[in-house]
């Protein structure tokens, strides 16, 4: 397994090479280099996964946790507390390797066509490599600090990629927002790490039964809660979600890579990584995670319904789906998959399937946007005629996300719903309702783009056509995975909360309910949006105008943030402090200088430079002295 180090080193190498030498490389060479390196990484990941999962299990039925590399990077001189870098392989990290490398490879290939001829092509590939590297480093982290390190790198690479079109003001603003919001959340993560390190005495992931963990049991819930804030930032949980919809300003493949499939699941991965501690010491925190996630899922779904920008719809759908995963993790009550621990596996499963179909959706969106040169749904409509492959791929992914069998999303979502019902029927029903909303807005999107009212005028001016092969091949591959993965792979065999293999099975009642509701939603969406004239939709939009406007403006959360940052932080804190500094602190020293000066000015009369005055004083002095002597 020593070879796994190259999974991280190769993209780093690619980043450094493309970053430094990119200027002298042609677009084609840079693209091919980046893609080739990532191809190797993907092969290595698959190889790693293959060898890892085919290796014999340990005696207790779990897969061995391998640490092929772990070296001290930054000494902290605190005994067991070290800042190590290394590679840790366990089922979830191996699974993440596959997800990340697959999606990233698809994006690399796709970008070759999508970014064709763009200025800064080499830079783009360099950043993609950096991003892939940081994400891979994050998942194989051997300790929480390494995770934080790569976590920050993920943040910065997203900053760089979102701000790729740095001459466009919205892109700059979006990149800034993404970085600052996640950075703010990372503060929670960092404090969580500090507390964790202090009370547990190490930064390693410790098992719940170790003495270190038990020693710090009192503070672990706090630490985990703070860490979850960091996770919530990256995973765009309410109210830290605001950066994600704006992040769509980056190139579309980047959205697919970062904001759909991989980066946003970092929070999910974090919770999954700390899952044993959550269950053992902080089940309440875990449930809070679930409530937050459920609310976010609902909120995002509601907003998604009212968006007209297709990438925004997808962005909110991502937030919603991440909410699903975190709900699944949050409703767990035990590490036994049969007794309340199903959610863990469900979350990972959904993470996997969601990565595939959401990447596919974004890449499709990219194809469409490139053809119509707009993100707005009203510029589209009737696209099925022009872009058949994209159409099918998009449809597959929509069906998957809506939870229609036999697409992969059905299986993972079903597991999540089962887990929710097992936890609490109310939670189950809520999530089912959100799933229905998902189906509705996805098909609203689907019909809006591919059917509905065609923007003939625009399409005759710029006749759309199918994207080139470099762009469609990734779509096909991802669709195929989406179609087959759910019923060919038994996910529970590989990933389960306690590490042992178990057979997941469909809960018939839940499955049927959810499918029926999803189909109903799709039908509603079909009647509303399929035709040229969308009477029902328009009238509904009119009737609930206030609600619609609020949802369209994302319930004004951004404005609240704007207010808080600009008015309160800058206006009421920073500016007064700057004023205070200039006028009070500095003023004090200036006052000192001034008063010294003024005093000198006053007493400089003694040093008038008038010889007569001096002699006069001298004379008086002499006279006084003489008087003193003679008296």
């Amino acid at each position: 397994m020593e070879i796994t180090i190259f999974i991280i080193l190769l993209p780093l190498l690619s980043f450094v090479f493309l970053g430094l030498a990119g200027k002298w490389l042609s677009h084609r060479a840079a693209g091919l280099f980046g893609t080739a390196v990532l191809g190797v990484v993907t092969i290595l990941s698959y190889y790693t996964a293959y060898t890892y999962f085919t290796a014999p299990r340990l005696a207790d039925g779990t897969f061995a946790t391998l640490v092929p590399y772990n070296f001290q990077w930054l000494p902290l001189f605190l005994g067991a507390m070290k800042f190590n870098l290394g590679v840790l392989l366990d089922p979830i990290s191996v699974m993440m390797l596959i997800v990340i490398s697959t999606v990233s490879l698809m994006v690399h290939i796709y970008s070759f066509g999508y970014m064709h001829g763009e200025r800064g092509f080499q830079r783009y590939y360099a950043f993609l490599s950096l991003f892939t590297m940081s994400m891979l480093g994050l998942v194989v982290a051997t300790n929480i600090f390494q995770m934080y390190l790569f976590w920050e790198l993920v943040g910065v690479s997203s900053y760089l990629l979102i701000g790729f079109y740095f001459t466009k003001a919205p892109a700059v603003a979006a990149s800034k927002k993404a970085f600052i919001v996640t950075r703010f959340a990372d503060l929670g993560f960092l404090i969580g790490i500090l507390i964790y390190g202090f009370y547990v005495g190490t930064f390693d992931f410790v098992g719940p039964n170790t003495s270190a963990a038990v020693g710090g049991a009192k503070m672990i819930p706090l630490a985990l809660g703070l860490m979850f804030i960091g996770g919530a930032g990256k995973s765009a949980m309410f109210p830290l979600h605001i950066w994600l919809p704006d992040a769509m300003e980056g190139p579309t493949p980047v959205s697919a890579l970062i904001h759909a499939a991989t980066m946003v699941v970092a929070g999910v991965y974090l919770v999954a990584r700390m899952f044993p501690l959550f269950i053992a010491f902080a089940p309440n925190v875990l449930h809070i995670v679930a409530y937050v996630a459920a609310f976010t899922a609902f909120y995002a779904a509601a907003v998604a319904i009212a968006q007209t920008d297709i990438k925004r719809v997808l962005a909110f759908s991502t937030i919603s789906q991440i909410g699903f995963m975190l709900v699944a993790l949050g409703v767990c009550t035990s590490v036994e998959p049969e007794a309340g621990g199903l959610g863990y596996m469900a979350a990972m499963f959904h993470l996997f399937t969601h990565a595939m179909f959401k990447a596919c959706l974004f890449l499709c969106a990219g194809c469409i946007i490139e053809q119509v040169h707009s993100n707005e749904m009203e510029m589209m409509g009737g696209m099925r005629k022009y872009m058949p492959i994209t159409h099918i791929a998009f449809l597959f992914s929509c069906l998957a996300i809506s939870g229609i069998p036999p697409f992969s999303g059905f299986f993972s979502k079903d597991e999540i719903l089962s887990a929710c019902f097992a936890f609490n029927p109310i939670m189950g029903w809520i999530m089912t309702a959100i799933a229905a909303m998902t189906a509705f807005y996805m098909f609203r999107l689907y019909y809006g783009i591919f059917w509905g009212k065609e923007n003939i005028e625009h399409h005759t001016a710029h006749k759309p056509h199918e994207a080139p092969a470099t762009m469609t091949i990734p779509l096909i591959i991802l669709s195929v995975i989406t179609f087959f993965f759910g019923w060919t792979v038994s996910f529970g065999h590989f990933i389960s909360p306690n590490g042992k293999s178990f057979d997941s099975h469909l809960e018939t009642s839940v499955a049927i309910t959810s499918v029926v509701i999803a189909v109903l939603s799709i039908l509603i969406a079909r009647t509303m949006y399929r035709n040229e004239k969308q009477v029902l939709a328009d009238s509904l939009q009119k009737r609930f105008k206030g609600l619609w406007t609020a949802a369209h403006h994302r319930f004004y959360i951004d404005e609240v943030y704007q207010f808080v940052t600009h008015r309160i932080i800058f206006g009421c804190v920073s500016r007064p402090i700057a004023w205070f500094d200039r006028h009070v602190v500095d003023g004090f020293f200036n006052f000192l200088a001034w008063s010294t000066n003024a005093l000198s000015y006053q007493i400089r009369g003694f040093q008038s430079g008038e010889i007569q005055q001096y002699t006069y004083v001298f004379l008086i002095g002499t006279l006084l002295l003489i008087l003193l002597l003679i008296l």
Partner: protein
Amino acid sequence: MISIICYLIVSTIMLCAGIYGFFTRHNLLAMLISVELMLNATDINFAVFNRLLYPNGQEGYFFALFSIAISAAETAIAIAIMINIYRNIRSIQVDKINKMKW
């Protein structure tokens, strides 16, 4: 015989007049004149002390002589400086010579 006190009173008056002039005048030349008065007063004292107290010695005599020589030299230099100043600022009033101050 004229008492030494009488001479001393005369020189004292001269000295005080010199001091008074030195303090009150603004004209450099006038100040210099006052200085001459003071010097003269001391010269008288030298001569008088020599003559009336130590008639056998000649120290006072010589010092008066030297003093005259020195005051001549001093005057020459001072006047040279004043002329120079006058050339530069067209005035020899002390309160106007403040270019180099502060």
